[in-house]
């Protein structure tokens, strides 16, 4: 829209279609208040999105001459959040019943916590009016509904307190009969924060007749439940869409990620596919060592794959890396019979037991002294870190053994390993180079 576009003041934001609700239904009153609020605010109807939930109140958006979204039950807040995040200049108003409040409880809570700038109007008539008058999360204790024929045994949810203590910027409770409802809606929409209005009203089809509910009993129920009306919470936490943009300003315009090619600088004598398993424990830098060998392979003009295996509890148990290296593209990355295993711990030996058992005398195992007795027919060479010219912490043993194994296997050269170490991020580069030099003696 160009800046020159003039907005003709609208006398109404309703269209010509009459409401579809039952006679005496509170929705009429609330929607008329909403219309008065929009008329008072004179918002560009193209900049207002009414997001409706499911149930009778979910029909509401069709009677307004503004943009609208009618989605799934309980999820209206999620669509509204997406719209507001993508277009923070739009005014996004959610209309949902007490049913949607219950099924979408997680969204309600988290939208409040984020303080996303949307206004939620809860059309709270204490039951599911569209599906036969079943009880909802806001049905007062003792109330009769089609699913609480002996009276509701559950306590009603205090919607306002829930969102209020969790960061909502504006929280108000009242009824469809309140004269100031239009003003409160306008105030909430204008506030640009997570605003919720818990609007109590009557369902003339079910709740009213079953519970002899009237305008007057709304007030007595409020009192019986110990709840307050009026403006209940007002907070000034940053609005989420604006906060996101403010927090990300410094990185905006940074380059998109692109391939990080490795130019081959070394030769490898490898003429066939070679399969290496590094088997150790979590925290033992198994994956870092495997990655370094993979990169050394690429630096040597080879193809490489690295397939990691570790339990979901990252810091305990085994850590195993399968490295497949070769002169042609690798289409299968798992290893059943390794050419070489670098064995670092009992956890690793247990995990690799099947693969160790599949090995033959021409295959090689490079093992730390404590796992030198692993069951395998492969030729085992024990690597003792006590022989190293420098003291090695446990996190350096994986690379130490791997480098010693590489030297003996001749799959990649020491120069390639050292060049790969240079590619390591940050302060580990020098330490990795030192570890490799220590291993090759």
């Amino acid at each position, binding site marked *: 829209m160009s800046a020159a576009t003039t907005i003709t003041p609208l006398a109404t934001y309703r269209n010509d279609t009459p409401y579809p609700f039952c006679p005496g239904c509170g929705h009429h009153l609330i929607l008329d208040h909403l219309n008065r609020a929009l008329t008072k605010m004179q918002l560009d109807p*193209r900049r207002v*999105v009414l*997001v409706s939930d499911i149930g009778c109140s979910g*029909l509401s958006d*069709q009677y307004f001459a*503004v*943009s*609208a*979204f*009618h*989605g*799934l039950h309980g*999820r209206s807040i*999620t*669509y*509204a*959040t*997406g*719209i507001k*995040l*993508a*277009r923070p200049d*739009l005014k996004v108003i959610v209309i949902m019943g007490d049913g949607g409040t219950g099924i979408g409880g*997680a*969204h309600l*809570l*988290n939208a409040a916590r984020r303080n996303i700038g949307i206004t939620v109007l809860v059309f709270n008539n204490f039951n599911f009016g569209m599906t036969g008058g079943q009880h909802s999360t806001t049905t007062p204790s003792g109330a009769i509904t089609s699913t609480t024929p002996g009276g509701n045994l559950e306590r009603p949810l205090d919607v306002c307190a829930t969102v209020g203590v969790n960061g909502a910027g504006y929280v108000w409770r009242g009824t469809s009969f309140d004269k100031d409802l239009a003003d409160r809606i306008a105030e909430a929409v204008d506030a640009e924060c997570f605003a919720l209005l818990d609007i109590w009203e009557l369902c003339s089809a079910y709740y009213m007749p079953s519970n002899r509910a009237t305008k007057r009993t709304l007030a007595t129920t409020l009192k019986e439940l110990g709840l307050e009306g009026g403006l209940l919470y007002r907070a000034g936490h940053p609005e989420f869409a604006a906060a*996101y943009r403010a927090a*990300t300003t410094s*990185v*905006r315009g*940074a380059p*998109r*990620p*692109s*391939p*990080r*090619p*490795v*130019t*081959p600088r070394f030769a490898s004598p490898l003429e066939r596919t070679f399969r290496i398993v590094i088997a150790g424990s979590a925290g033992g830098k198994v994956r870092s060592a495997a*990655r370094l060998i*993979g*990169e050394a392979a690429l630096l040597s003009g*080879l*193809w*490489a*794959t*690295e*397939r*990691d295996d570790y*339990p*979901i509890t990252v810091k305990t148990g085994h850590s195993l890396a399968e490295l497949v290296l070769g002169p042609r*593209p*690798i*289409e*299968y*990355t*798992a290893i*059943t019979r390794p050419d070489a295993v670098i064995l670092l711990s009992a956890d690793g030996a247990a995990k690799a037991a099947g693969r160790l058992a599949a090995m033959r005398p021409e295959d090689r195992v490079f093992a730390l002294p404590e796992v030198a007795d692993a069951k395998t027919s492969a030729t085992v060479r024990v690597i003792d870190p006590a022989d190293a010219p420098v003291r090695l912490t446990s996190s350096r043993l994986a690379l130490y053994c791997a480098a010693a194994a590489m030297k003996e296997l001749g799959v990649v050269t020491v120069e390639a390993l050292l060049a790969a170490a240079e590619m390591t991020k940050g302060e580990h580069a020098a330490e990795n180079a030192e570890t490799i030099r220590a291993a090759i003696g």
Partner: protein
Amino acid sequence: VREFVDGSTAIVRGALDAGCSFFAGYPITPASPILMQMMRELPKVDGIAVQGEDEIASIGMCIGATLAGARAMTATSGPGISLYSENIGLAIIGEVPLVIVDVQRLGPATGGATTVGQGDVQFVRWGTAGGYPIIALAPSSVAECYSLTRHAFDLAERFRCPVFLLTDKELNMTTTTVEVEDYEAPPVRARDVLAAGGPPYRYLPAAGVPPIAQYGGEGIVRFTGSTHDERAIITKSPAKVAQMNEHLRAKIEDHAAEIELTRPDLQYGASTLFVSYGVTAGAMREAVVRLRSANKAASCLTLNTLWPVPERAIVEAASAVRRVVVAELNHGQYRREIERVVRSAEIVGVHRVDGELIAPEALVEAWA
């Protein structure tokens, strides 16, 4: 030149290069690396990435953001697709372009979080109420993770529908070597936006795809997940509802040939055709290399489009063989489709559902 890279990284790059500007997701192994990278990378291109309170919120935010002008992607694994289910239907009926990455793991339920599976193949096709078509692409290498992500964004705009990128734990989390020149960069079309008001939907011609009405533009925009007419007004009129539903079907099924992407590698004289997709297709291609080096003729077909079923390519590839071997990490879900379209050959399944990969040896054995 080559790089050492995993599928998650390739998918993120593909999405950013395709113009993705919104991502919402919920942590789940093995899809979390995509979420973490998107959180870091999207702000750089003035995009928005959010971690939703659950999968339902994540896909809901994506749908809302798309109608407000964003190009959205979400990523999860099988359990998350279960939670996406209802909103997938909303994206279908509301004709919302959306890319959904399903990094498959072993199911059912929590299954094996860090183990591979291909058990969501039929699930993504039939995973929402009503039974309407979607599009699903399946990369079989890290390079394809990049190019098919781009392609998924293009198809989502072309057909205004959810497009699944069906990958798996191995493709996403295993680091492999990619020849940088192998990253194909299929064009990604700009969004066809409805310029000035007017009805947001169009059902005639049935297979046509109208421009998208976006919030905050020149007109008032309506959207609904209920059966609706072209103005997005809820209707139960049988004639109008039939028109809407026929449109949702025809716009994809009538363009199946346009969506069909396969990689045939056929050998003259082969009596066995291998058919596979995803990570298993790699083992299949390796098996074919081994068979041929042993002077055994063999053909294979990698399926990059799974839905709609690339029937023409399958029938053509199977026309000269006596035996079709379908390899997949489930109990034979896609074999059902091959059996449906291939009537001229014996269909054999090679399956594995223990969290391990199908090895090339198993396929060499299945050759005849």
